[in-house]
């Protein structure tokens, strides 16, 4: 049996005194893609931020078998890479410089990038078909291009666990598919583990091995997309009226408007 990439037991997070996560337990196997869904305010982003080490929590989190509290920040950054929901875009910075920021956990404090770091960034840019953009300023890129650049920075970190917070929320449907296909391809070629949060349920179900439904800070359902994305589940936790249709890659969730009589 391989060690789980992520092992969370009874995770609790409070923000400003308000409990946001109320005892979440969750395992993600190495190489697996798990997508966390849930209504607004369920605690999806909080879960990822706690895993990324930027929020204080109680409970236990292990990353690849090592308790997260025993990892130094630098060490953790080599294992976990996060793409935030809407990352800060430093104006005027070039794509290459931005991707090189991902090499920070390998660069000595107060040091500078080695040729190996630049080579690593180049490799990521090439793989993501961004090499032509290397010298462009971030502020000149479109939303889809930017999302690929954010991903490139995370990959440059060399981490095998990728935390994606709403990676497609700012993209049109074509670019959503493009980015998720890219993540899936990288997952297979690099042996990455992906833990994502998503709002669009149909597309989320098509890419996830497993889904976790979070509501009010607790896991209320977990399993294959077919098991989690049911009309009854979504009605109860999203208060949404939907029809779930069986698609080729997973259930398709279609919102239905009820005419009031």
């Amino acid at each position, binding site marked *: 049996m391989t060690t789980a990439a992520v092992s969370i037991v009874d995770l609790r997070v409070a923000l400003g005194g308000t409990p946001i996560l109320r005892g979440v337990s969750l395992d993600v196997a190495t190489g697996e893609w798990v997508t966390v869904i849930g209504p607004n305010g369920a605690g999806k982003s909080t879960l990822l931020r706690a895993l990324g080490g930027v929020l204080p929590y109680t409970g236990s989190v292990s990353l690849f078998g090592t308790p997260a509290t025993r990892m130094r920040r630098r060490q953790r950054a080599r294992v976990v890479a996060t793409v935030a929901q809407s990352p800060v875009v430093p104006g*005027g910075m070039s794509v290459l410089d931005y991707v090189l920021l991902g090499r920070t956990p390998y660069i000595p404090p107060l040091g500078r990038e080695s040729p190996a770091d630049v080579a690593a960034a180049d490799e990521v840019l090439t793989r993501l078909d961004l090499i032509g953009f290397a010298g462009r300023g971030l502020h000149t890129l479109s939303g889809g291009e930017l999302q690929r650049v954010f991903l490139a920075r995370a990959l440059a970190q060399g981490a095998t666990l990728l935390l994606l917070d709403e990676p497609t929320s700012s993209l049109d449907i074509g670019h959503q598919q493009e980015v998720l296909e890219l993540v899936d391809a990288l997952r297979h070629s690099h042996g990455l583990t992906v833990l994502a949060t998503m709002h669009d349920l149909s597309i989320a179900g098509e890419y996830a091995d497993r889904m976790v439904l979070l509501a009010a800070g607790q896991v209320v359902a977990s399993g294959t997309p077919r098991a989690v994305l049911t009309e009854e589940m979504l009605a109860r936790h999203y208060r949404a009226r939907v029809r779930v249709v069986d698609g080729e890659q997973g259930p398709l969730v279609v919102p239905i408007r009820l005419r009031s009589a």
Partner: protein
Amino acid sequence: MTTAPSRLRPRWLLAGVASVVVAAVAGLALGPVRLPPGSVAAELLNLLPGVRIDSGLTPPEVAIVTQLRLPRVALGLLVGAVLALAGGTYQGVFRNPLADPYLLGAAAGAGLGATVAIALRGGSSGDETASLPATVPVAAFAGALLAVALTYGLGSAGGRERSPAALILAGVAVTSFLTAAQTYILQSNVQTIQEVYSWILGRLATDGWHDVLVLLPYAVGMAIVVLLHGRRLDVMTVGDEEAAGLGVHPQRSRYLLIVVASLGTAAAVAVSGLIAFVGIIVPHTVRLLAGVSYRSILPLSMLFGGAFLTLCDLVARTVVAPAEIPIGVVTAFFGAPFFIVVLRTAKRMPV
């Protein structure tokens, strides 16, 4: 690969060093006695150990260059470098383009300190040319440090997770409080207003090398610490949370950099008064012209800041000679239009 990571480009470094040399030679050559720049440059080289060039200057002229003007030029370079570097540092740690070296109350604290020192000395001597009391720089330095420490204490009271904005707001509160205190003291001691005012507008009048030697250790210490943090500041441009995800401790770096930049600012204020504008405009000009990486902004701000202030001082002491214009007036008068031109012509848009 055609694209290289942005670093300090050699041609910009060269331009920065050249601007310092030009400003220094001009500052030494021009004044009531005009000296040929070539001879002045030769005299400068003569200061290096083992160099002996015949500059063609008479001994009194050599004395003007090395004993009268050189300390003042050196002070201008140093103060300008410190203020511009401190401004660039503050803009980086607060990710705020409006940050200047006086953001956390250093100016108000120094102003209050100087006012108290001048007022306590008692009635004005009535002699306009009398120099300010020797306690003024000490009081200004202490006031600046006290103010920043107060801001620090107030702004970080909510714990380490507070946003940098809390610190800036604390700076605003401390500044207005100390300014109010200063105004009150001034009102009760009206005869000191002129002296205090002339101090506030800044000046580089020197008495030999004393001021330079006072400022030098702070300037060197600050430059070393800040320049080493260039890449760290680049990482911090993505925000504290993402920077933490990249394995660094942004809050730790922020506090360290604030401390050293504030020490440098306080030392500069103590010897030169409040010179506005250099700390905010020089780093922005550099950013617009030479790129957004702090690895180039910081060293170039230092060089161009020093050169800019030295040239401003040259204008300040020559235009209405033998009187002097307060240098703060000159920095704003020439700096503002120049900055507008840069802002309008620079191709890299984001500030």
